Every structure is written in C-alpha cells, then in structure tokens.
C-alpha cells in the first residue's frame, strides 16, 4: 500500500472499539492477575496482605503444581502426537484416492464443530463403566475399565476425546499440504525407483514439515487451553489430581478453592508460557504477519 487517506482523527475512532475491549477485558484483568499474585487474600475478600513472591515460591514448592505440570505435558504431548499421526494417516490415504478425497473430507471434518464439552460427554458415555459399550467390550477382554477410579484411564479418556475433536482440523491442513506437493516431484521419485513407502518418507514427509510444525504448535496451544471444557465436563480434574492440567488448576484454585493469590500466580506463570508459545508461533508466521 502506498496510498493512505489523509484524515487525522478518523483512524483513532475506528480503532477505539477494539482497543477499548482489549484494555477493559484483556489488559486490565491481566494487570489484576499480576497484582494479585503478590497478595494473600482471605476467602471472603475482606482483607489482603502484600506477600511479595510468596505465592510463587509456594507454587514452585508445591508437589501438586508439579503434578499439574506433568499432567499438562503428558496430556499435550499425547493429544498433539496422537492427533497428528492419525490425521496424517487419514490425509495420506485420502490424498491417494484423489477423486473421493472431498467426500472423505466431508465425512471427517464435522467433529471440529462439536463443542469440546460435548465431545467429552460423548466419549464419557462410551467409556462409562456401567453403561458404555466400549467399557463393557474392554471388560470382556479382561481390562477392568473404570475412569471414575483409575487416574490413568481417566487421562486416556480425556486424551481420546480431545484428540477426536482435533483430528478434523489436522486432517484438513495435512490434506491441503499434501495436495500442494507438485505431482511431478512424486513422479520423479517414482522414476528414480522409489516405492510408495520410500516416496512418503523421503519426499512427502520432508516437504510436509512446515505444515507439521505449524500444526504441532496449534495442537499444543489447543491442548493447553481449548480442552478445558473437555476436562470440566467429564473428569473435573479427577480422580484425585490425575487430570488436573495447569489451566484447569487456575480455575479450580480460583473459583473452587478461592485461593486467589495462588490462582493469580498461576495465571502469571501461564501468561509467560503462552507468551513464549506465541513468540514461537509468531516467528513461524513472521513473514506473513510482518508489521
């Protein structure tokens, strides 16, 4: 663009709504969180004392918080890994049967539209130890499935539900990425004597790596934040702490435990984490979002 309108005040007016909402509902609460992180407040909000870094120190000395960190890592890595592998498999297959690819796409993308909370409920029912067909099938195979009691199984359940919802998204991007690879490259590799499997690992996968990297970041962000509802609608962080992720803990400590200082400190830690992730994401898309 080399042509601009000469008005001086109009642009501020145009920006005002966005900036106002941002300031009131984003920056102010974020500032509040930072402030609260340095105070200790009683449960009724009647008094509060400045405690410096105590909240953070308590946080990093708390075994529970490290457990939540571990849970978050296991959860994110599983969701991202499982989601990427399955989606890639499906996308590669769909890319092979080019003519029918659009039909398969339609049949595979709709879970994106299902609310995470509902996705959680759907799988919750499937695996319910008393009525879920899958849980009963597992029991006949000798697996004693009960996600109300078994933390690992509860974790597996939320991973499955969260992955299920994300596969459609990954599938779309993988399929688009695959279809963007020039046919001539694949043909050249075939003439060079590479079979389908070799072609996939030597040509397709490397050419797909930007898509894969991008999806990896998106999936991790998704697993961090958007899966809150999956957990809240199903396990609510339990049994015990086995499915309490860092994001879920912020909510639980703040709203249920009413430990505002600690919740705020956790918010601050998460903001730093998101900031780092955004920077990674931003670096990747830098050339597109250059200011």
């Amino acid at each position: 663009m080399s042509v601009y309108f000469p008005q001086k005040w109009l642009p501020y007016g145009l920006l005002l709504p966005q900036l106002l909402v941002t300031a009131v509902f984003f920056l102010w609460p974020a500032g509040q969180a930072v402030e609260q992180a340095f105070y200790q407040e009683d449960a009724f909000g009647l008094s509060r004392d400045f405690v410096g870094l105590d909240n953070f120190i308590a946080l990093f000395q708390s075994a529970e918080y490290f457990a939540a960190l571990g849970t978050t890592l296991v959860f994110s890595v599983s969701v991202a890994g499982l989601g990427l592998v399955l989606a890639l498999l499906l996308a590669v297959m769909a890319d092979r049967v080019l003519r029918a690819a659009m039909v398969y796409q339609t049949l595979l993308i709709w879970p994106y539209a299902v609310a995470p909370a509902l996705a959680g409920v759907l799988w919750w029912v499937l695996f319910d130890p008393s009525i879920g067909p899958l849980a009963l099938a597992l029991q006949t195979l000798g697996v004693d499935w009960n996600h109300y009691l078994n933390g690992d199984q509860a974790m597996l359940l939320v991973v499955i539900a969260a992955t299920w919802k994300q596969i459609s998204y990954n599938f779309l991007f993988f399929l688009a990425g695959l279809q963007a690879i020039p046919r001539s490259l694949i043909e050249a590799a075939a003439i060079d004597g590479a079979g389908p499997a070799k072609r996939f690992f030597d040509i397709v996968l490397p050419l797909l790596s930007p898509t894969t990297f991008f999806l990896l970041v998106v999936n991790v962000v998704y697993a961090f934040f958007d899966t809150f509802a999956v957990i809240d609608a199903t396990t609510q962080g339990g049994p015990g702490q086995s499915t309490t992720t860092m994001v879920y803990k912020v909510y639980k400590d703040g709203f249920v435990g009413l430990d505002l200082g600690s919740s705020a400190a956790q918010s601050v830690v998460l903001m730093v984490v998101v900031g780092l992730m955004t920077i990674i994401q931003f670096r990747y898309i830098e050339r597109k979002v250059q200011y």
Partner: protein
Amino acid sequence: MIEHRPGLTFVSHLILWLGIVVVALPVWVALVASTHPANAFAAGAVPLWFGDQALANWQQVLLGKDGDMSQLLRMTLNSLVMALGITFGKIAISLLSAYAIVFFRFPFRGAAFWMIFFTLMLPVEVRIVPTYQVVANLDLLNSYTGLTLPLIASATATFLFRQCFMSIPSELVEAARIDGAGPLRFFCDILLPMSRTQIAALFVILFIYGWNQYLWPLIVTTDDAYYTLVMSIKRLLSVDNGEIEWNQVMVTTLLAMLPPVLVVISMQKLFVKGLVDAEK
C-alpha cells in the same frame, strides 16, 4: 496415481472408512441412546440399535417435563445470541481496526497494532479469575453484554482482514479517490463488498467458536435465564441423587452440537477457507 496398485487403493479406502466409523461412533451411540427409556441403561450397556422411546425422550427434552418448551427455547436463544453477538462483534471491530491500520498513517499506529497482537497471548482461560472480577465490577454478570463483549476482541480476525486489505491493489484506492469516494464511502462501497468471502468464511468459524463457548458462560451466568445449550450439559451431568438420565443428556448433547455441525457441513467451502485464512 503413479502406479497401479489396486490392493493399496483398497487399503486406503478401508482405513478411511475405519476412520469415519471411529469418528462417527460416539455420535451414533448418542443417537441410539437417545431412543431408549432411562431404565434401559440401568440393566447394562447402551444398546447398539435404536429403541422405541425416541419420540418420548425428544419430546421430553424439547417440551420440558411439564410440557412447555420455554427452558430449551430460552437456552437455544441464548446460545444463538451469544454466538451471533460474538461473531458480529468480532467481525465489526476487527474490520474497523484493520481498516485503520492498513489505510491510514497516524502516530501510535504501531502501538495499537501491538496492543491488539497482545491479546493473542492472553486467552480467557489463563486470566479467568480477574476477568470474572472485572465483569462483576462492571455489573455485567447475567447479561448478554457480559456473555459477549469480553470475548469480541480478536487479533486473529484483525490480522486476517489486514492481510485481505493489503492485497487490494492500491490503484483501486486511487481510482476511488478520483471518483470522489471519502474514507467511509470507500469502506462501505469498495472494501466491504470486496471482502465479503473473507467475512463469510470468518463468520462460519466464529459462529462455531461462539456457539461452543463453555467456560465463560459457565462462570458469568448464575441465572438460568442466561444459560446456553452447551454449558447446560454440565447441570444435567451433576445431578444430586447420582442417577444421571443418560437419554436426556444424549438428546441435549445432540441438540447442542447440531447447529454448528450443520453449518460446517452445509458451508464446507467457506469453513475450510475460514480455517486456512485464519491461520495465515
């Protein structure tokens, strides 16, 4: 296809159908469960074929226990208001700010850009408690404003429109200026019509985003006049006596997921475009 391998093609189709079946399984089971009486589950697993209670169950959810459908209608309406409010709000304020950033030069333009960018780093989940406090202080709990307004700042939409505006050839702007179009007329006559596919694509994505909100309506509403469909599922699941009415849960779940799923399927092209554009 580079070489003819019917076997491999067959396997491809097989894997894809397997994927489709697995993906569809939970919804199938939900559909089936919604057709059985509540006591069918007490005996054991959800049956794998339809029962005869479909009409009764759906009626009960749709019309309510006492025959008036006000509660469900209310929640559907609330979901719709929230989804559309967020969608239109995000699109409107993002169009305006992208327009300001691309077509004007003014002091603090960079600062404004970074402030909008900053919102990317602050998803509502990480600042949930103080955001709740702010909304409570503004007396916006249990209101449509409280449900929508805090969610409508959007860096993604702003960037999308910015990208879209920057691809408009500058000659077009010049032609409009020579034709006597001022900034607002240019915005309405040229920019909006030219961006309509991007707007439509974003509309699809944002509608789904808005409809599927869970945590936010859960904490800012305590009055069931403002409950939304998606969050209502939590109440159905946390009944006090422990006996969850699964058939009702399934009907509600299916109802709550129907609008966005229909939107995705009927507007698949726009949806895909929206997803891809939003990530540029």
